[in-house]
């Protein structure tokens, strides 16, 4: 526990100490919000809460991106040599993995909270109960995609490779999730991928909460794109939440496993410092 907390605290200290990065994080959040709310205005036309519809999509995208990208941390640690210090310490690799996942989730959630806060000034309406649920969902999404990111980072071991993998993974996940383009308008060919995409369910649950859809009937939910009808079998939003947990758990396990067996000792280290 102490080791996990130490890694978590270290990453958070580093995040806040890196002023440029922190300011950029704030800037990116605001940028996402303004640009995408402008772009997506037409998709949201005619909805009860257009602002809620837009912002819920943007929050989830931001949390997703941040969580995935924060796994870069360990690649920096490998490059700077600090990874060796961690690897020879008498702590389990799983503890290192959990510490990393928790810290990138925390940073991702923080970014989500910033967007929600900005959103309130732009007409987002949420009551405290929904806020709590959204916070929980953001944490879930953060952990799910931090695990995925760390898994990919442990697999690639190099920042160039990682960047390529991330863009290959992130692009389809983003565009086939319904966050930007409604899933109803996608061709039938792509629909299986849509249903396998954890981000689809994340987005739908998030919208369900943000748009206060508790009172809608099932066909209405399907029509709004937050419930899915797969050949007569309906996936309700809360079942979607379970899907996210399951997919998150799978990636978490994969990540801890991959991290545990990855051989970081032969990774080329840039000789910095006294050399």
């Amino acid at each position, binding site marked *: 526990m102490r080791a996990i*907390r*130490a890694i978590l605290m270290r990453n958070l*200290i*580093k995040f806040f100490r890196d002023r440029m990065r922190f300011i950029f994080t704030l800037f990116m959040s605001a940028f996402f919000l303004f640009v995408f709310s402008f772009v997506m205005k037409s998709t949201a036309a005619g909805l009860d809460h257009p602002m809620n519809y837009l912002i819920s999509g943007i929050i989830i995208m931001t949390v997703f991106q941040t969580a995935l990208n924060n796994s870069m941390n360990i690649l920096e640690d490998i490059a700077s*040599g*600090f*990874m060796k*210090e961690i690897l*020879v310490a008498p702590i389990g690799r799983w503890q290192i993995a959990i510490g990393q996942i928790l810290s990138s989730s925390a940073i991702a959630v923080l970014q989500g909270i910033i967007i929600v806060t900005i959103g309130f000034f732009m007409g987002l309406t949420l009551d405290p109960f929904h806020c709590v649920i959204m916070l929980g969902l953001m944490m879930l999404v953060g952990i799910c995609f931090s695990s995925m990111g760390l898994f990919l980072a442990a697999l690639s071991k190099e920042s160039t490779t990682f960047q390529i993998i991330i863009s290959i993974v992130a692009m389809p996940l983003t565009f086939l999730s319904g966050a930007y383009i409604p899933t109803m308008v996608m061709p039938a060919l792509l629909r299986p991928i849509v249903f396998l995409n954890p981000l689809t369910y994340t987005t739908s649950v998030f919208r369900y909460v943000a748009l206060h859809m508790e009172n809608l009937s099932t066909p209405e939910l399907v029509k709004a794109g937050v419930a899915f009808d797969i050949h007569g079998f309906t996936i309700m939003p809360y079942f979607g939440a379970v899907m996210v947990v399951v997919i998150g758990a799978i990636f978490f396990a994969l990540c801890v496993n991959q991290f545990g067996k990855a051989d970081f000792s032969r990774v080329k280290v840039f000789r910095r410092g006294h050399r």
Partner: protein
Amino acid sequence: MKRGMPRIGIRKMNSIEVEHFTKKYGDFNAVDDISFTVDEGSVFAFLGPNGAGKSTTINTLCTIQEKTTGALRINGNDVTKDKTLVRKDIGIVFQETTLDGKLTVNENLRLHCDFYKVPKAEVDERIRFVLDLVDIKDWKNAAVDSLSGGLKRRTEIARGLVHFPKVLFLDEPTTGLDPQTRANVWDYINKLQKQKNITIFLTTHYMDEAEICDKVAIIDHGKIVAHDTPYNLKKKYTSTTMKVKTPDPNLLGAYCSEHSMKFLNKDGVVTIFSTDVRAVMEIVSTFKGSIEDIEINKGTLNDVFLAITGKEIRN
């Protein structure tokens, strides 16, 4: 075992035991069936040219690389099976910097204490103790990135010691340091060794550092080619080194190979290595007419190294 007890009949504890250790990369044997032990509380120097298998051995002992075959133990714990127990007992100062540059000296040490479960009540005191030992108190709250190479090295040594390891690995701890800092670092290491009776496993390019060790092992092409005290090694391999300048070095070279003596013929100067003083005198009397200059030296560890591996250590 208490100090001062008679040694007869009592086996001294081995801190490090390596038995028939082999590491293969594909078909290539990076380390080829080596065995050695290091006594508890002693200073052991592990020397070899680059690529001889030093780093592989040290990395395997530190549990960050897997062996192919053999058995390696630290304080009786197997480095493959009991990784966590081994890791608790060892401290490592790697060749390259492994500090977190964005954190301060204090934060780096604190993080290390968290990893090694140093009792929380002791953390502050221990950090003060090691900072004092390597004399970097004044930089306690400075970011590591802002420190000079020497200060970074000292921070790294302080960190390797803060959890009071029983065995300390120093992988070229003084490479890249100026002579003054190098001397200081050794002062700290010696001070510490006296205070805590820890075992030190050292690799270095500097032969004067190896001179003060209790035992020296030389590894070349993955095999241990010599393992003894510095004194015995020098006695065995280097009684005399003679440099002779002569107009016809090839003739002298031919004479040496005829008498099966090791020699180097470089830039018109023939360096002859001989363990037999009489053979050396014989050369002098045979070639006395044509010797332009002569220099006779008592052997050093560097000569031991050169004699065994045929290479300068800093190749």
